[in-house]
């Protein structure tokens, strides 16, 4: 305690959060994917115990050719920025929530950044449903389990079954409404995802 004041002068950059308990030894990931302005960061902020932070990952051209890049040859660097927050689950586990842009170049970094992710939430803006098609397609491609949440502020124009049809979403993928501004609503989205993962996981455990 009394040594603290003498350390102030040499402190690291200010940390905008409560530190994790020293006993925490396992970190988990959930990714919220959605187009620009759909409310990813809003949802992270609603449930995170820290103010959402932002960082970036870079990738050089060498790693890019593994997917279709339309004949890019020269060495280039691309940068993807993403936001995140966290939730301490218990004295041993912490959950990191990432808000990730659904744009094309982001998916090149999926394996590097999000291998081992529990599951994903696709956050849908009903005015731009097409933005979500690509994300859903890519998540299926990566074998990443997900649910879809419609961020809904106001009277919805379409019913959820209509939206499911517009997204060509199969019946076994949960589709729910939410208001990303509200903690309780965002929390229920995460719980819906984990319930879905739990059902998938127990089904696998019990299958021969």
């Amino acid at each position: 305690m009394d040594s603290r004041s003498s350390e102030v002068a040499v402190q690291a950059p200010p940390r905008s959060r409560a530190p994790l308990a020293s006993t925490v030894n396992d970190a988990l990931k959930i990714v919220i994917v959605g187009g620009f302005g759909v409310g990813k960061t809003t949802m992270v902020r609603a449930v995170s115990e820290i103010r959402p932070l932002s960082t970036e990952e870079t990738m050089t051209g060498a790693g890019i050719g593994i997917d279709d890049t339309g004949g890019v040859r020269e060495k280039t660097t691309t940068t993807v920025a993403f936001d995140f927050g966290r939730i301490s689950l218990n004295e041993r586990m912490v959950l990191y929530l990432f808000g990730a842009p659904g744009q094309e170049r982001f998916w090149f970094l999926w394996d590097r950044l999000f291998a081992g992710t529990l599951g994903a939430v696709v956050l849908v803006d009903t005015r731009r449903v097409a933005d979500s098609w690509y994300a859903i397609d890519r998540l299926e491609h990566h074998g990443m389990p997900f649910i879809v949440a419609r961020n809904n502020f106001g009277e919805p124009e379409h019913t959820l079954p209509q939206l499911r049809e517009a997204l060509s979403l199969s019946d076994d993928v949960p589709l729910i409404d939410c208001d990303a501004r509200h903690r309780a609503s965002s929390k229920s989205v995460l719980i819906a995802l984990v319930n879905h993962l739990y059902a998938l996981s127990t089904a696998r455990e019990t299958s021969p």
Partner: protein
Amino acid sequence: MIREAIDGENPDRLYTVTGGRSRADENAFDLVTLIVSESDPAPGMQSEHAAILRMCRTPVAVVELAAELKLPVSVVKILLCDLLDTGRIAARHPSASVVRTPLPHPEILKQVLVGLKKL
């Protein structure tokens, strides 16, 4: 496809910080590997190394270090490799990335649910 260069960051700084190296062992650290200091900063130590040791007196995830230091994740991984090699930090790796199964174990998910419901 390649729309932007990393022009938000000064390349000279990135070069200096990493001593010119461009790659860490990609598998050494996950985005959410928790880093804990095993020693205090020593005089004369590179300032980024010293900052990491100060920040990690309690566990801090790699991605949080990157955000706080305002460096790309891959650069932070290189810095962490140095500190791990010299025994100055310990790394607590996420269990999910070790197992590499498509779905997490139900028991882990149960604990996540309990934690979320307490929110």
